[in-house]
């Protein structure tokens, strides 16, 4: 077991207007697992990912990764940990407008002061694989939403993180790009044993996972393990979504 989340909770705001984003969630993730997190809008998916990835601190509870209690770490050490072990694809992309595509993608490597050769190598490989080589000199605000998302994904994966957090990574992608990205994520998950935690609304996207948990109103509602057959898994997910309500039933990618 790589990640253990124990009874965490998180409130936003105070007193009357307080929102209980996460009420009481416990969770275990194995090394090399591809975990999907699903739930309606406002269920607390992003909040949960943020806390596991140390971007936010829970009000209560513990988050233990590789035996280390991250909630006990100082801000600075958390940042170091984050930088060295984790990669992120944010729901809002979080690309730097001042930098162009290439600079954005190589940012994690540059921050770790990797040598230039390695940077170029990895960059070219990544861009080729995700089929976005032609974007490399573009400015961020010249990109479409989908293009931004895939650039954000490239940045998240370029320094081969041990744990990848993906918040709605295919939300703005067409089905072809989504498939390319998901295949790649599956590949690194299999080959390099990267642990992936992915939040999504989309049943098709979730069907790539090895396990999906459903949360609603800040608690874990249920959980489905991939039976080994993606179509069947997809069916199960759709059914669960219907039970919970609020999911996307009619997604373009369903036609796949």
């Amino acid at each position, binding site marked *: 077991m790589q990640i253990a989340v124990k009874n965490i909770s998180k409130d936003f705001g105070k007193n009357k207007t307080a929102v209980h984003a996460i009420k009481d969630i416990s969770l275990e993730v194995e090394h090399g697992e591809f975990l999907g997190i699903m739930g309606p809008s406002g269920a607390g998916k992003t909040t949960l990912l943020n806390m596991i990835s140390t971007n936010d601190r829970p009000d209560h509870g513990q988050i233990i990764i590789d035996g280390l209690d991250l909630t006990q770490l100082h801000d600075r050490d958390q940042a170091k940990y984050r*930088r060295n072990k984790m990669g992120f694809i944010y729901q809002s992309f*979080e*690309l730097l407008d001042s930098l162009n595509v290439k600079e954005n993608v190589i940012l994690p490597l540059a921050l770790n002061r990797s040598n230039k050769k390695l940077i170029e190598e990895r960059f070219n490989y990544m861009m080729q694989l995700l089929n976005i080589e032609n974007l490399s000199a573009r400015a961020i605000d010249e990109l479409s939403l989908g293009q931004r998302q895939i650039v954000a994904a490239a940045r998240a994966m370029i320094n081969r993180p041990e744990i990848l957090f993906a918040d709605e990574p295919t939300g703005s992608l067409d089905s072809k790009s989504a498939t390319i990205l998901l295949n790649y994520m599956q590949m690194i998950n299999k080959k390099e044993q990267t642990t992936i935690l992915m939040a999504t609304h989309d049943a098709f996207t979730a069907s790539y996972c090895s396990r999906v948990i459903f949360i609603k109103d800040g608690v874990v509602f249920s959980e489905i393990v991939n039976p080994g057959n993606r179509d069947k898994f997809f069916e199960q997910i759709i059914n669960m979504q219907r039970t919970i309500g609020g999911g996307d039933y009619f997604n373009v990618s369903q036609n796949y």
Partner: protein
Amino acid sequence: MGVTISMYRKIIKRSLSNMRDSYVIYILACSFAIGIFGILLSMGDNPSVHLALHWWDNFIYDISSIMSGLFAFFAFIYMAYVDGFFIKQQRNEFLTFEKLGMQRWIIVTLSFFQTAIVQAVAWIIGLSLLLIFQKFMGMLLFFLMQVRFNFEMYLGWDNLYILLEVFAVSTLILSLINAIKTMRILQKKKTKPLVKTRWWLRIPAGAFGIILLLSAQICTAYLFKDMRMISYSGKPLAEIFYIMMDDIVGTYLVYYGFLPSILDIMERIHSVAYSGVNIFSFKYMKERLFQNISILWFVTELSALALALLTFCYFGYQAVHQNYNSAYPFELAANKDTVKVIRDELHKNKAKVKGSYKTEVKINLVSYYSKSNQTYTRQPMTFMSYSAYKSLPKRMRKGNSKINSHQFLKIDYNSSLMYSNHTNEHDIEVKNAPMIQTAKWGYSFPYGSSMHFGPMMIVPDKYYQKMPAEVTDTFYGWDFKKGDRLSRKQLQKLNSYRDAYYMKVNFKSSLEKSNIEVMKKEPNKYEAAIYTQSGFLRQGSIKKRLKQGGGFYLFIVALFSVALLVALGSVLTLRILLRDDYQSRQLRTLQKIGVEESEIKGIIRRENTLTFLIPIVFASLQAYAAIAMFDFGHHISKNIILIYGGYVILYGLFGLISFKISWRGVKQKFSL
């Protein structure tokens, strides 16, 4: 209707609270200016000022109303300029309003009232500052002027009316300006295109800027030469104008040309730029500097101006002070003809004598080639022995070269205070005494420059004893505790002793044949060769006035300097605080992808340091270069460095505060 109005009120409230820090700084700076303006204005017709400083008559009133007017003018320019920042900051917000279907005139009205509200708040605080600090400032003024008097708080109806008028008019104009600015934002919606580095334009422009700056320095050197040589000519004025233009344009070109280029070069060196957070910070810094070039330039020039003004004020003050000191080293001085009368009078009014001195002098004829006048000079000269000179208080020797017991010292008028050519005098012939080969220079007359005519010579004791004299005299000097207490009546009586005697010099072909004829009565006809020996010299009220004038001067200069500093500092701080939305978002993003907070803090610190450092470095270089030439290098006085140091420290303090606030603002966004 009610709903829409309350919505608009909410909108105004929100945008005010969004830029809270920036508004606080702006409002504080404005209310400071308003407070000072009010204090200056009300100082003029404060009854206690009139009572305490009655002999300054209307002078104080005139000065304080001129100063307050000047102050108000600059403060207004500052407000108009800085107020624009806020409108610019709200650009996106306004555009969004319009997109959401809000009518244009409503948006314009919103910005009008927003400005008016901010202005009103600033005025309320400013007027409270006026009421709170008027007494304090008045006491400070009296303290600096060394007047023992109680300063009463006072705000006349006239002044109150003027203040309200200024408030109404300035607020209306500022609000209108902002409304127009908003209108223009709404009319041309397109976003600014990204500034491109155009090397082919920037590098030559920067190089030309450097040439201009250098030529300004060369011209400064010429200016000081010309100022000494040419007395009446338009040339120095033209030169000053040229230098100012050169400095102003040159600095801008250098900023424009090199600031981005340097950052660009750094960015291109991938081994530097691609390591660590530099990959982001260079671009970020470049963007920020691009936006701020004209403000950096503006601040640089104003700082240089401030430093130059401080320097001139200092030199002006020095000049007056030095002049005064060399004219009146003792509170009271007399010669052998008047000493008895004066002693009697001092006895009568029981003046407390702190120290009394007495020195014998000899007056003889000399001739020499004067280098400063470039003429051959013959004149009477007063001689004093070395040991007599040394027995006088130290302050008498302040402006003189150091000599030992074998050296000669010639004390003469210092024609130009800033750059006297302090060269030794050579080959001075003295009637019936050995020629003086070399004499050092000085300008502090031990008993005051107007005690006697012409120069004075300090000579070795032996030389003094052996030399003959045309006239011998004795000088007396007194210092008192709390003044000489001479009454007006006594002074009237002493008036007839003002001139002790007159000396008529009969110049012949040689010094030996020439002689001095002493006359007790004032000769009818004034001839060139008649010299007067003063009977006595009194500081009296001059000392008091000098102190008061100096204090007043200091008060005004300090006030203006501090105000200027506040203005410059707040402009820079506001520029740093008012980041574009996406700029502050980027810092947040950096944190999200695992950049340590300390590194982000480093970026903020670097941005802050650059913004504050560049102007002050350029400004002090410019000011320093000017003074260095002014003084020809060998006389940069400690005090000037002190003044500059003080300025730089205060400025640096602003930088520090600005950094703290800036970081706080960024950090607040982090926890969202």
